[in-house]
């Protein structure tokens, strides 16, 4: 890349240069065992919790998806659960909605916070106030925020907040959640409003770790603002950008509370049903925990495949 315009960037200033100082190497075996035991004693609590509530359920989920439990009797049923869940009339709609939501949320919820953070980072005044504002919605319980959007924001009559604004601007009003076309964008807007603060703060922290000399040097080399963003800001925050993109995709693919509250689950003509909602519906309404587990495994496979492609692509860019 155009790193050549900025001498010295390769040094990675954030990383401590010194390796782990040579520890006590002459220690006896007994000492080593004791040190290890101490280390594991500190780890054990977290490891137990991970074991019970993350690692074991992961395996259990896969196992369950090939079993069926009826009246307390569990039998192996092969791919039956998968057949049943794929045959659900909402299955494909749920996937379509989930991809649509993820893409929209990525455009809105990923790019916007980054540029907001770049902007905020330049301000020498009111920065604290602006940061509080951006993060405030994150502190609201999502149910509270979504009821606000549902009852006041997306009120399809002219009394609704968004319709009033559209009307004042002489733009056509919308039926919002009542219209299958607007359901998704409306959910993404609500979701982005609620969640972007966290990303902004994390980006801001990353931006403030960029050494000022890099910008100085780039400017001396005649790089304009956009070039400085492209050649200094983005490369310097690349790791955190990549990590957050991944986390955001994993998070948005599981959107659940937005359809549940804004659209009473499925929305008009299945326009809001998400894969996560379908899991919930099968597991806890249709008394089909095994089918829900199967759908969970499908989701896992899709996300893993996606992650693999993503990692491939982002490592190729170097």
């Amino acid at each position, binding site marked *: 890349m155009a790193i050549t315009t900025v001498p010295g960037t390769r040094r990675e200033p954030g990383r401590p240069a010194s390796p782990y100082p040579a520890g006590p190497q002459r220690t006896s075996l007994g000492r080593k065992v004791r040190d290890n035991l101490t280390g594991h004693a500190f780890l054990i609590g977290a490891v137990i919790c*991970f074991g019970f509530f993350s690692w074991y359920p992961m395996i259990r989920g896969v196992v369950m998806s090939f079993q069926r439990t009826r009246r307390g009797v569990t039998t192996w049923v092969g791919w039956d659960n998968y057949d049943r869940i794929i045959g659900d009339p909402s299955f494909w709609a749920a996937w379509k909605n989930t991809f649509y939501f993820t893409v929209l949320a990525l455009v809105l919820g990923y790019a916007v916070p980054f540029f907001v953070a770049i902007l905020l980072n330049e301000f020498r005044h009111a920065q604290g106030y602006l940061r509080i504002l951006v993060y405030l919605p994150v502190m609201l319980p999502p149910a509270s925020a979504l009821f606000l959007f549902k009852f*006041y924001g997306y009120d399809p009559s002219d009394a609704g907040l968004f319709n009033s604004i559209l009307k004042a601007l002489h733009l056509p009003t919308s039926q919002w959640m009542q219209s299958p076309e607007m359901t998704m964008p409306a959910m993404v807007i609500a979701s982005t409003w609620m969640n972007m603060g966290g990303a902004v703060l994390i980006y801001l922290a990353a931006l403030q770790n960029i050494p000022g000399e890099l910008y100085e040097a780039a400017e001396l080399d005649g790089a304009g603002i956009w070039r400085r963003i492209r050649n200094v800001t983005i490369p310097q925050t690349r790791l955190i950008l990549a990590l957050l993109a991944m986390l955001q995709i994993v998070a948005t693919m599981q959107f659940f509370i937005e359809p549940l509250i804004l659209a009473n689950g499925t929305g008009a003509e299945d326009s809001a049903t998400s894969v996560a909602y379908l899991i919930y519906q099968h597991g806890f309404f249709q008394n089909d925990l095994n089918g829900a587990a199967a759908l969970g495994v499908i989701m896992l496979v899709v996300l893993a495949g996606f992650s693999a492609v993503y990692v491939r692509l982002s490592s190729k860019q170097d």
Partner: protein
Amino acid sequence: MAQDSGTRTLISHAQLRRGRGRVVYWTLLAVVVVGFTLVFLGPLYWMVTGALKSGQEIAQTPPSLFPKDPQLQNYADAWNNLDLAKLLFNTFYYAAGALLFQLVLDTAAAYALSKLRPAFGNLILGLMLATLMIPAMVLIVPQYVTVIDLPILHINLLDSPLAIWLPAVANAFNIFLLKRFFDSIPEELMAAALMDGATPLRTLWSIILPMSRPILGVVSIFAVTAVWKDFLWPKLVMPSPETRTVSVGIYAFSGGTPMNVVIAASVIAAIPTVIVFLIFQRNIMSGLTTGSLKG
């Protein structure tokens, strides 16, 4: 605020102080301040005042900016009909417990992974970080089944706070944040403490933790908000009305309750977190922005 004139950012200070740069800077700042206030504070204002309006007033077009005849009754109804005191207490209790469990167990784990480095430490870290890639929704069904009948112990944790506290500890992101921060604490300090004969626990308590206040603040906020914001998990594992969290409780009542009362309840549910945030915002902001120890 934020007069840290030492650091240089995208655009140099000098450029912003002179002529055109200065005009652009102040215009942009004004636009952003007004815009952000409208976008982020506006809806909250609408929420608080909307819940003060009567059913008729909320349905009128164009909507009124101020409630004509404030109906405090909506808030009183929300408080009494939904038993918000109980719901808020439950949520506090779950959040506080989750915070305590995470601070103790996750800090200890991150310390072990960063400084003590026992055998297989990296493998364990890897397995923990791998869970970041596992969508919570994928685990929700098997986790639920696990909580109903905990393996080996065969305990049912439904309606027990442990069903929220223990899974909260399995938070790879917080462990990752803590570990990364601990990594940046110079090994010389560890070596010095060792030389003075301090035990690993003593070193953690007297050296690492005092230096880690910023990151502990961040992790605490994350831990509390995670519980506060969670919806589906508490909905599943706290099925009785007596053990519900505030979000789940409001949702459960939302069907048969007037719209303005639901919003009033939502406002009340949001007040504690907003207050906590306003009090501790400096901790989280400085924790996230000062970043390294050297700063």
